[in-house]
């Protein structure tokens, strides 16, 4: 099997080399976001990034006096892409968790969220472990919701993981999924859409994280400190509240 090892090392080196070449050396701050997670980050009809995360990131950049550029990145590769220096910070509704803290550094939170079950109106599926036995439960891959489902319900229920929350929602609508487990605020927005009208929250919310923060590479302490200051500043001068009010009639901080 030594040829296999050699081949694997060669392949890995090629990958590392390829990633390193794409890293950016300028002093612009590059911000990674997903663009498929309304209302927090999405691509509008004109092909531009919009949403709460994007507005917050723009406000933070203005406070820091920095030039920022957004990079769209699929969710399940967003932490690897940050580590590979494709961008410098993730502003994409990322939950602060111990698991992720092993890989990246987090700023203070810029909003708080609860993870909730959503299902068809009137079905009233019990969201306890016994109630969910044998059910098809959907979540987005590489989220706190997915980790929770895999760890707590992986043995009793069928867990389906999707590339984007939007694809997961499609399968909830067409009945492939019995219930969805996802961020309460995202689903709160979705329940207001035409597709979402026939669905409702089941049970209360679960706090599976320490809020939502901005992820940076662990060694980028300076950037993290600057971002933390900027978060405090937009909280203090009302910019944050203005952005919050644009999306939600209640405070999500």
């Amino acid at each position, binding site marked *: 099997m030594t040829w296999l090892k050699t081949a694997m090392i060669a392949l890995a080196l090629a*990958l590392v080399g390829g990633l390193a070449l794409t890293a950016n050396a300028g002093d612009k701050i590059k911000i990674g976001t997903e663009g498929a997670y309304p209302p927090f980050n999405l691509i509008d009809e004109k092909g531009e990034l919009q949403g709460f995360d994007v507005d917050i990131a723009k406000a933070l950049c203005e406070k820091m006096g920095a030039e920022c550029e957004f990079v769209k990145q699929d969710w399940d590769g967003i932490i690897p892409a940050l580590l590979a220096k494709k961008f410098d910070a993730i502003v994409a509704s990322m939950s602060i968790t111990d698991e992720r803290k092993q890989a990246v550094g987090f700023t203070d939170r810029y909003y708080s969220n609860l993870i909730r079950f959503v299902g068809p109106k009137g079905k009233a599926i019990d969201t306890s472990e016994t109630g969910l036995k044998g059910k098809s439960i959907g979540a987005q891959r*590489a989220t706190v919701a997915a980790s929770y489902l895999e760890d707590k319900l992986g043995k009793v229920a069928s867990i389906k993981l999707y590339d984007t929350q939007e694809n997961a929602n499609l399968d909830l609508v*067409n009945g492939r999924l019995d219930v969805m487990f996802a961020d309460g605020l995202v689903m709160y927005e979705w329940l207001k859409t035409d597709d979402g009208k026939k669905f409702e929250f089941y049970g209360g919310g679960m706090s599976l994280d320490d809020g939502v923060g901005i992820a940076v590479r662990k060694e980028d302490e300076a950037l993290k400190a600057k971002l933390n200051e900027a978060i405090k500043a937009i909280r203090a001068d009302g910019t944050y509240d203005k952005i919050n009010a644009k999306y939600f009639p209640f405070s999500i901080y």
Partner: protein
Amino acid sequence: MNVEVMANSVPKLLDGLALTIELVALALAIGIVIAIPIALARVSGRAWLNGPAFAYVFFFRGTPLLVQIFLIYYGLSQFETIREGPLWPILREPYWCAIIAFTLNTAAYTAEIFRGGIEGVPHGEIEAARALGMSRVLVLRRIILPRAFRLALPAYGNEIIILLKASALASTITLLDLTGVARTIIARTYMPIELFAMAGAIYLVVTFAITRAIKALEHWLSPQTRPPRPA
């Protein structure tokens, strides 16, 4: 490189490989059954047979497999008539959606490969068989199809390998094939290099085995190139 993560991932990746092989094998088997009549329709010289066969091949070769998978998995499920129809128990399963997409896709390519094989059969052999009094069907069964299969084999081996790699797209519709498992582990470990290198190495090993098997089959089906057995 975290060797521990790589080693720990092997059992799960092999589970994923089992699904990958299942999807590819089933799609190839059904694909051949669909491809042969389409290839025959393509060489039939009759417009009413050739036309639809050409349209089928044109569509499935001309659109990306990912688009075909999404059309079948997310597209069809948008229609209430489908969701309430008799096919829904099959179409609601990502497994069958992947099988359908892979099968229809590989059948289109395989039909073209077989068409090339059929057209490559030397006319003299067909004439000789006809001269011996074989019927059209018998010529097809004894001469054209076996010869065409041998001629098409190297290109068909290529198609098997292409489908094996394309099957990674099954991971986009929640299936935990080899790539799907790798992506799920990456979601918890953030080690794409380690996991994709492992998954890549497994694909390589399987591809290698397929190449060798095709080579052996080619050898077996070409007795004329082998030295005669001692009497």
